[in-house]
């Protein structure tokens, strides 16, 4: 592999990321870059939807959204007025194991971002009128989700692939579970699960690292939460016993969205890179890889047909997605299954493997082009314990993967006897499910 063309000075790595750890456990990773007069902040705290009570699914995400609905010193309107008046943005979210935050501003407004982060984390007030309004917004989003074929297919796929498991429950909950959430629940969740332990803050942009670290130390360095409870470990993922096909009929739709797949490797698994390269060949390279070739280019059945590897900390999914006319539902599923059989039976060709390797290595500069992308890369390296030099090591790691590695990984995860297939949209005329 030729990696000479890659400008390593611009890559985030150990040599240009300044690290600091505050006495309360907050870790700061800072990369100075003067490409544009902007600063990005991205990061996370421990605790996410895994902590949701089953009757109040959606609580972690709701709490994260509610942080900006008012603090001891500022109303929600004041918070947003300050941000929007200078063209800055900032927000919170939550996934299974963490609560995340992110924002951007012109460099002169960076202190405002840190002020906002600190005020929302340390002093949220969860005012009832604001929480009521936010709840209506979340419920509206959930009602819209019920009419979205892609979202409904995805929800059903996750539920069946990860039954009774945090990976199979939606972070945003269900209408009935969100309706049960009250302002005191948000307050309790914040009291118990928000704390500096395990918090990571990544700063990228036109600011000196020491200035950024000093500011964070000033605003967040003394934060303690003696009531903080640690996030539990992700439980074992239940094995899929047999394949399953589910169709969700939705009236007045025109296209069926299909999601099918199996369990995939965790991001930290030794199988990950072989699965990732294999996934590239199967459904991403060029115009959506082999799957795109057979479903779109050769059959004209779909506008999109591709694959993805959703690798999380303790497991994941390997998915194929396509959007087809209802009359083509069976044909598309059948074509995709045939392609999966080929993928788990024969090794990928040397040409395909080389193409994928070149593509992965060549795309590194593009993948860290903007400050946002650099921040995202640093967060991923930190979250999954990949090491801050991961992008530097990446070409060698990619180069070490063989066609046999990909075949063995594909056989390990893609099992047609344990395949979950979900379609959502207008019911196909010939569907007998």
């Amino acid at each position: 592999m030729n990696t000479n063309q890659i400008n390593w000075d611009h890559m985030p790595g150990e040599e240009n990321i300044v690290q600091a750890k505050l006495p309360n456990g907050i870790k700061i990773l800072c990369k100075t870059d003067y490409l544009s007069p902007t600063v990005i902040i991205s990061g996370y705290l421990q605790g996410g939807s895994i902590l949701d009570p089953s009757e109040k699914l959606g609580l972690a995400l709701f709490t994260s959204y509610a942080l900006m609905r008012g603090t001891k010193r500022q109303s929600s309107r004041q918070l947003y007025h300050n941000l929007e008046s200078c063209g800055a943005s900032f927000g919170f979210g939550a996934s299974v194991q963490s609560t995340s935050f992110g924002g951007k501003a012109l460099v002169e407004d960076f202190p405002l971002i840190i002020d906002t982060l600190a005020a929302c984390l340390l002093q949220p007030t969860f005012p009832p009128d604001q929480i009521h309004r936010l709840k209506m917004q979340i419920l509206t989003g959930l009602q819209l989700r019920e009419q979205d074929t892609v979202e409904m297919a995805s929800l059903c796929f996750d539920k069946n692939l990860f039954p009774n498991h945090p990976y199979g429950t939606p972070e945003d909950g269900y209408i009935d579970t969100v309706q049960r959430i009250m302002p005191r629940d948000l307050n309790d969740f914040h009291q118990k699960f928000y704390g500096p332990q395990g918090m990571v803050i990544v700063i990228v942009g036109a600011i000196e690292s020491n200035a950024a670290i000093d500011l964070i130390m000033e605003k967040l360095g003394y934060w303690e939460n003696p009531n903080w409870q640690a996030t539990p470990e992700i439980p074992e993922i239940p094995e899929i016993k047999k394949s399953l096909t589910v169709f969700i009929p939705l009236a007045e739709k025109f296209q069926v969205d299909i999601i099918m797949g199996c369990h995939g490797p965790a991001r930290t698994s030794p199988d990950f890179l072989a699965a990732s390269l294999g996934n590239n060949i199967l459904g991403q390279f060029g115009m959506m890889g082999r799957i795109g070739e057979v479903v779109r280019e050769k059959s004209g059945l779909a506008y999109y047909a591709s694959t993805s590897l959703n690798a999380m900390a303790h497991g994941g999914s390997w998915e194929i997605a396509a959007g087809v006319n209802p009359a083509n539902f069976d044909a598309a599923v059948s074509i995709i299954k045939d392609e999966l059989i080929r993928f788990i039976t024969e090794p990928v060709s040397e040409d395909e493997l080389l193409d994928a390797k070149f593509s992965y290595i060549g795309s590194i500069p593009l993948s860290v082009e903007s400050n946002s992308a650099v921040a995202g890369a640093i967060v991923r390296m930190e979250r999954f314990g990949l090491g801050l030099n991961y992008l530097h090591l990446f070409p060698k790691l990619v180069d070490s993967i063989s066609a046999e590695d990909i075949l063995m990984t594909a056989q390990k995860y893609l099992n047609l006897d344990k395949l979950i297939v979900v379609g959502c949209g207008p019911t196909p005329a010939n569907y007998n499910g």
Partner: protein
Amino acid sequence: MNQDFISEKLDNGLRIFLREIHAAPIVSHWVWYRVGSRDEVSGQRGLSHWVEHMQFKGTPKWPGSLMERSIARVGGAWNAFTHLDWTTFYETLPANQLEIALSIEADRMRNSIYESNEFEFERSVILSEKEGKDNDPFARLNTAVVKAAFSLHPYQNDIIGTDEDLHHIQLNDLDRHYQNYYQPANALIAIAGDFESQIILEKIKQLYQSYPLAVISRPTIKPEMKIESSKEILMYGPGDMSFIQVAYRSPAAADPDFFAYTILDSLLSGPSSLNMFGGGGISNRTSRLYRRLVEKEYAVAVSGGLQATIDPYVYDLSITLQPLQAPEIVLKKMDEEIEHLLTTKVKGKTIDRAIKQAAALFAYGLESVTNQAFWIGYSEMFANYSWFNNYLDRLRDVHPRHVLEVAQKYLHPENRVVGFYQPETAKEG
């Protein structure tokens, strides 16, 4: 704004814009054609978008699979977009791979092969793309609202086309469209990134200079300055949610009114980001309509959309209603806020705020070489590159009186289209 770029026009009419940015070893190459859905007539709606799809099928020198493989194996990104006024193709690549993009784009400008089997496959692919779009009820409402906002102007047509036309378009229709519009005289190349301009300029000349100067024939289009009367569209569908979309006429991007309109947009619904790659947007929690409709619990979301176009288009306000709120009440509340805007001069600090927001959005866009190359070509499609370079200065020149005049000129309730989407149950009730 940095104006450090070179531009040149070849004898065959091809215009070239090169801007060196050596911050990262990346280059972004765009070819823009002055053809979009505005150039289509009834029976041929969707033709420009279909041609864009066919441009990925290949040439004798660059078969489709070779193009795709050559870009992908160097880790490049490529795609194409068809809009109202233009069609564009881009490749963003490691800097030392620019020649791949130069060669592909030069070749497929004139030498694409449109084969009948591929043509028929692409018909079903595009119908599938349209079905995916039609799955979204709000997209269907938007299509109906925009259509009603014009009497004759082709901006009324959905870019993807109509089912009827997509079933009837023939291969020779596509070929004619391609042969007419994919000419150097109708094209512009914009490249930004890590390269040496003089070397690349010479390469472009070598690749394109053999193409002759051609005359482009295009339909005569009369701009529609006004929505002549108030119109309403009522649409019912499944689900529990109600939406409203209101469309007012917006000025052409080159019209001086556009800049005052930008202030109005920022004030009413939060600033629209014109960046296509990177940057992201700014929330709109302090916009007047958010405060009037969302904070007062008439709606759960409101947004506005202002686009830069050659001719006057539409400025749309989209509202997702709170459950159980009557659409006519929500519309009345929106109208009260608009009425306030029509009768009260905005303060100077409101304009300063909009300028700061625009400056931030521009700065975010600077992080991406792809976005910078995009802006060169994009601004040339509806005005010129100086429009982009002078954008902030033009905003600074806006006077509060001008904002009031523009509001009174464009946001009149008698000159708009209002679309309502309601649940089937509302119809039964």
